[in-house]
């Protein structure tokens, strides 16, 4: 059984604000007697991708680190049994800060599929949907700034679809339809 943890590990996610490196991942996982600490050891050149997430298998004593950019899960062995692995969850000061961080993760990590249905399955995009109604004005603001594939999220959150069939797949028209909808609904 794999326990999915809320939160995403980030390069600066420790009390000292250190920047960890991708090659240190296995060494990160060392823990001591439940004290739950991270132990960076060496410095290598590759940054840890911001969108890396993780899950812990209690039975197998493995930690699964998921690189959403590549959609690959890589198992790393926990060094001893009975220990917890601590990753501090990121907390965001505001919904806007959370939204902006998730947008960055999505744009960086969504990959090169030709299908919106694949792009929308990215964890960060799903987390934006999970923000619920508070994400709607932020999405509309983002759409106005830079049109993109936000129809899926807006429809998932609101249950509505103001885009006429003739406008589907045409980003300018789709964006226009959603912005008008947002104005009518009082979101902007």
């Amino acid at each position: 059984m794999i326990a999915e943890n809320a939160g995403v590990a980030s390069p600066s996610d420790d009390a000292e604000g250190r920047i960890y490196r991708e090659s240190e991942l296995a060494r990160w996982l060392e823990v001591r007697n439940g004290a739950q600490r991270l132990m960076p050891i060496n410095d290598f050149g590759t940054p840890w991708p911001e969108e890396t997430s993780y899950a812990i298998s209690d039975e197998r004593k493995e930690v699964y680190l998921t690189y959403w950019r590549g959609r690959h899960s890589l198992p790393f062995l926990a060094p001893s049994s009975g220990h917890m692995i601590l990753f501090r969850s990121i907390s965001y000061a505001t919904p806007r800060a959370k939204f902006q961080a998730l947008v960055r993760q999505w744009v960086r990590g969504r990959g090169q599929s030709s299908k919106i249905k694949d792009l929308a399955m990215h964890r960060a995009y799903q987390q934006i949907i999970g923000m619920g109604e508070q994400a709607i004005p932020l999405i509309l603001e983002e759409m106005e700034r830079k049109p993109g594939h936000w129809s899926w999220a807006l429809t998932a959150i609101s249950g509505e679809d103001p885009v006429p069939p003739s406008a589907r797949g045409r980003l300018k028209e789709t964006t226009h339809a959603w912005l008008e909808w947002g104005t009518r609904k009082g979101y902007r």
Partner: protein
Amino acid sequence: MIDIDPADFPRLESLGYEETSSPTDEYNCLAFAAGIDDEWWEPNRGVWPEGIGEEDSLANLIEVYRRYGYECCADGKLEAGYYKIVLYGIEHGGYTSYEHAARLGNDGRWYSKLGPDEDIAHASIEAVEGPLYGRALQYMRRAIQ
């Protein structure tokens, strides 16, 4: 600069490519292959001709291109009087999904739009083959009018 994951495109770096545009969500590879740069083609949520099935099958995509005047052909060689495209897909048992399309340029290189990222030029069809786009499975051509 495009962020290529070698797990998705294991041969792209070694076979070589050149970026030819900025990234945009405005169009995808399917529209781009047909010379259209302001549409995203996809069943259910993008441009998709009426009367064609809404599964993401290679067979449905071939029908879409037929609507735009393309016909299946044997190869991806330059041929006077024709535009050519190649369709990539993944076979899942008895079902083949489309995953990508590229067009042949007059310079003999292939031109691809990589999802919401940049357009690229690549000398070989195989350059974008891999776990994400599958294999080149069908060539099509359209007479230049």
